[in-house]
């Protein structure tokens, strides 16, 4: 009896705790009924992954500040890919099945993007890929439209990137009397899914741009010492390195600078768009030329400057990486679709996304139809009024100077002191 009395407060506490637990357990559902859960997925520890998270956060903050859609706000859920397809697949399932996510945005690596595509179909949840460039993404959607219709590509594919790299090479080097002697290129690519179409496109378009391809080097992304590769490039007498790198960036650039390799470092360098790259390389990126969909607030549309300023203010970084721009535009497209769709089911969102036609920070945002070759990929066009556009720039004295297209150019190519056309 005494024991029973002693246990009464304990029982009351247990009952209270159970009640609190039940109410708390019910809370997420109640919140989910109010807010719309959207997922963002990327490698949290990587420069380009952080840019994806930042841009999604900024977009949602602005969207919610505007009042959301029909009074409903977006609740952003973050997931880490850890560069692992298995981790990403588990995260995608958890997002949809446990967290009630209605669409997922992000993904940096092509290998992860390709592995998530089937999950997007199985879970009937839209996936907008914003950092990975593999040409296989639109190709697979085109080949199996009914299966992969939930997948959208908010970034241009690698073949387009290569083509743009060649156009910049033509306009900036071979068609420029001052730099036309820079015409011996070596293709320099990290061994990853996204670079295979780049290499193939470079092989075709560089000769058309007036450059001779003197060598083709693919290297493992975990390569530490680039001395043997640079030795080969010097022996080839190449004077332009046409890169296709994004997983790596710091080591090849630092060693290019330290070893004073007498070739211009150009092509596609995914990490170089971020100002963090200047810090990570300790300024060795001085003179590096690359192309990117967005850059330094280049006034591609009337929204570019506002995004640029808000991003810098919120995250205290000088320059957002390319996938910050693409992610922000993808989020804008999704927010637009949420407003148009009758409900948040995957099929309703897909139909609404297919109707997207808005102005983003990189240009017009619209997606190719399922019958197009680049199915469900964002429309690309050199004119920002017609599609996502592209900018070429060079690092000069710690700043990104736009060198292409001519109408946006803020400067000219400066050849680093150790680079020479003939060596």
């Amino acid at each position, binding site marked *: 009896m005494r024991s029973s009395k002693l246990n009464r407060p304990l029982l009351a506490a247990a009952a209270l705790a159970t009640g609190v637990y039940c109410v708390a357990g019910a809370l997420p559902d109640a919140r989910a009924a109010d807010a719309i859960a959207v997922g963002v997925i990327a490698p949290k520890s*990587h420069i380009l992954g*952080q840019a994806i998270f930042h841009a999604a956060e900024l977009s949602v903050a602005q969207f919610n500040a505007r009042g959301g859609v029909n009074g409903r706000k977006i609740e952003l859920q973050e997931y880490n890919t850890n560069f692992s397809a298995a981790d990403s697949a588990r995260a995608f399932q958890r997002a949809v099945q446990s967290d009630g996510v209605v669409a997922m945005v992000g993904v940096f690596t092509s290998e992860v993007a390709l592995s998530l595509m089937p999950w997007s179909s199985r879970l009937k949840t839209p996936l907008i890929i914003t950092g990975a460039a593999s040409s296989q993404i639109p190709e697979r959607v085109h080949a199996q439209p009914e299966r992969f219709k939930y997948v959208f590509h908010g970034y241009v594919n690698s073949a387009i990137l290569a083509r743009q790299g060649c156009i910049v090479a033509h306009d900036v080097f071979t068609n420029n009397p001052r730099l036309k002697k820079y015409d011996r290129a070596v293709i320099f690519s990290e061994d990853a899914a996204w670079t295979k179409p780049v290499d193939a496109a470079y092989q075709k378009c560089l000769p058309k741009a007036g450059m001779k391809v003197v060598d083709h080097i693919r290297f493992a992304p975990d390569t*530490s*010492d680039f*001395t*043997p590769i640079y030795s080969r490039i010097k022996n080839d007498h190449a004077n332009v390195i046409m890169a296709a790198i994004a997983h790596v960036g*710091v080591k090849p650039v*630092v060693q290019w600078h330290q070893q004073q390799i007498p070739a211009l470092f150009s092509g596609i360098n995914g*990490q170089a768009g971020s100002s*963090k790259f200047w810090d990570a390389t300790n300024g060795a990126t001085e003179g590096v030329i690359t192309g990117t969909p967005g850059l330094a607030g280049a006034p591609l549309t009337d929204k570019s400057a506002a995004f640029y300023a808000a991003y810098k203010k919120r995250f205290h970084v000088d320059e957002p990486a390319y996938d910050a721009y693409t992610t922000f535009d993808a989020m804008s497209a999704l927010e637009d679709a949420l407003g148009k769709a009758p409900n948040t089911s995957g099929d309703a969102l897909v139909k609404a996304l297919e109707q997207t036609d808005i102005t983003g920070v990189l240009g017009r945002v619209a997606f190719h139809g399922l019958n197009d070759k680049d199915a469900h990929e964002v429309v690309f066009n050199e004119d920002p009024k017609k599609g996502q556009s592209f900018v070429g720039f060079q690092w000069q004295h710690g700043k990104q100077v736009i060198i292409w297209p001519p109408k946006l150019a803020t400067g000219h190519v400066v050849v680093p002191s150790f680079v020479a056309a003939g060596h």
Partner: protein
Amino acid sequence: MELLLQILISGFIIGAIYALGAAGLTIIFGVSGILNLAHGAIVVLAALVAWYCALQLHMGIYWGGLAGVAAAVVTTYVLYALVVLPLSRSRQMAADELPVFLFVATLLFALILQGLLEWFFGSTPVATPALIDGVIHIGGNTVPLNSVLIGVVAWMVLGGLWLFISFTRLGKAMLAASMSPRGLAIIGYDIGRIHLLVWGLYGLLAGIAGVLLASFIGASSGVAINLTATAFTIVILGGLGNVLGSLAAAYILGFLGTLTAFLIAPSLREIPGLCLLIIILYLRPQGLFGRH
């Protein structure tokens, strides 16, 4: 000729960094009998702290480098105080099981440290500023002065280590501890203090290796496991606990890897060394310079 010279220069520098990294590991094994799997993580910690202090805190490369080395020493003592010492004194496990537990415990410490480094510094590689700017031209090869300096500094540190072990009372005691700890205790030395010294020395060597590595090719949390694997290959190839054996093995691996990278493919750099290790383990399990 130009290529041969380049291979010789690269092999010399890589070998020097390998040797420095492995020297501490082999001393720890020689004196304490512990195979420290947290080695790569400690080297990377020094590199990342040096970069952070030099560039983010604007301390400059030399003060940043010192901070990196200090961080490695402190972390090594944390490993010793929180993991090695309590396990070594534990009465919960049989003496013959202790090395296995210590082996696993250092692995767990490495994973924790690597996770913390990735969380704090990110996974993107970073490079510290060059210790010295400029290049020299040797037989048609352009060699960064920084790389030459790194090789020279590594050898100066190794030379200092040799002088310390050979000519100082503490160094000789350390050497004696690796041969007969009981004998050393009988003549009045405190073995605990010797272990404390050895772990500090190990942290110092790993820290310097990390700072030089960050300046030479850059570093990131992801390379910790590779650094541990390379150091282990060297230590086992040279003979466990044999410092001179480790130096020789570091150069064998350094030149073998450099030759492979230059003549076949950079991505195959590690393969010949690992094949050699398997052959040595078959033919001479005690390593090239080890004793039975």
